[in-house]
């Protein structure tokens, strides 16, 4: 399984993914620039990513607390998600994500 992450400088990285991990954790584990200051408890918005194309529909729907947190960002788009709320699974194998500027450490 893998996830494909484009960083804030436009460089694309292919990361090996582990089922059951928060996608934020996978990105952080590879040392890509993601602040994730609350540690994955949906209490900040510093793991904000943009989800490419159809992948958005394959994700578990957003809860209200994620929605609220995303509203605190300055760069929210229709395809915004918090990567700590995305749990890696087989259906997400190959997902394409872009790190937001607000996720920069």
């Amino acid at each position, binding site marked *: 399984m893998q996830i494909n992450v484009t960083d804030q400088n436009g460089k694309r990285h292919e990361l090996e993914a582990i089922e059951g991990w928060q996608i934020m954790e996978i990105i952080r584990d590879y040392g890509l620039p993601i602040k994730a*200051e*609350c*540690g994955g*408890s949906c*209490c*900040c918005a*510093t793991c904000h990513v943009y989800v490419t194309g159809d992948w958005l529909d394959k994700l578990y729907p957003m809860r209200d607390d994620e929605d*609220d947190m995303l*509203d*605190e960002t*300055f*760069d929210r788009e229709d395809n915004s998600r918090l990567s700590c709320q995305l749990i890696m699974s087989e259906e997400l194998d190959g997902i394409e994500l872009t790190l937001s500027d607000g996720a920069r*450490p």
Partner: protein
Amino acid sequence: MSEAIKTDVIIIGAGPCGLFNVFELGLLDLKCHLVDILDRPGGQCAELYPEKPIYDIPAWPVISGQELTDRLMEQIAPFNPVFHFNQMASELKKLDNGHWQLKTDADTVLEAPVIVISAGGGSFMPKKPPIPGLEEYEGKSVFYSVRQMEAFRDHDLVIAGGGDSALDWALNLQPLVKSLTLVHRRDDFRAAPDSVNKMRALVADGKMKLVIGNIKQVTGENGQVESLSVKTKDQGDIDLSCSRFLAFYGLTMKLGPVAEFGLNLHENLIPVDTEKFQTSEPGIFAVGDINYYPGKLKLILSGFHEAALMAQEAFRIIHPDKKLRFQYTTSSSDLQNKLGVNDKDAA
């Protein structure tokens, strides 16, 4: 400059680890002063997730961030810690007598032989909106906090945000200002429902305005804001003329002045040894999420362990001629006296 307050230990950060430092140091009769940029104890537990359950505190199958903070405050109460809230530890220097002098951005001066940095992810600082050129106005007509309400009297004020800070200040400042407009991204507020109701009543009475949209531009001269351009969904781009702008977009953590203390750093963390949790400077310790050592886990319980070991070395530094006796709270009447539990619990 105010006169230095002398104490045994100065603790930077009043989160769970900062608070538990007080307990471990207190058992060894060491008095503490704590400095924190927030207005209350608890650090991340209070600011980021007061309501969220924590499941990995020993003996607490589940406890909220706020409850953990409250329990720690109760636990350290016998040691009478002194808190300096709403202040950022800004400058640290070594004095000729070997003690450390810490200054805060509110000009508090503290002096002690031992410093413990338990600043977690750093200082909570306001999130700044990406409005081009906004920094020119900061501190002159654009602010991220209110120090004196009078500074807003008779101004045309715009407040941005949808949380408690934005709503509370809107309600508090409304009677003082010439005009008030609240700008929020959407017509749904995270603030306490009671505040939201009060705000809506003021809007209905024509005493303030509510605009749903995003502030995109600022115009003005020499640091004096004149208007803000807001992109709204239903009215397109509108200009709000104003003379003061208060932005409450939440807080984010930054290491801040601790980075300038002259300590060795490892990717914004402070390396320590795992015997005493001392930094590269003898007498300065780092405990909790802010420290780094091989195998470090950023867990509250790790910080509690670190605090206990730190306190042993702090004692040796402060009382080099005294022998340190290791005692248990279960059996030591000395410790029980310090905790104020000896009388009622004695058999």
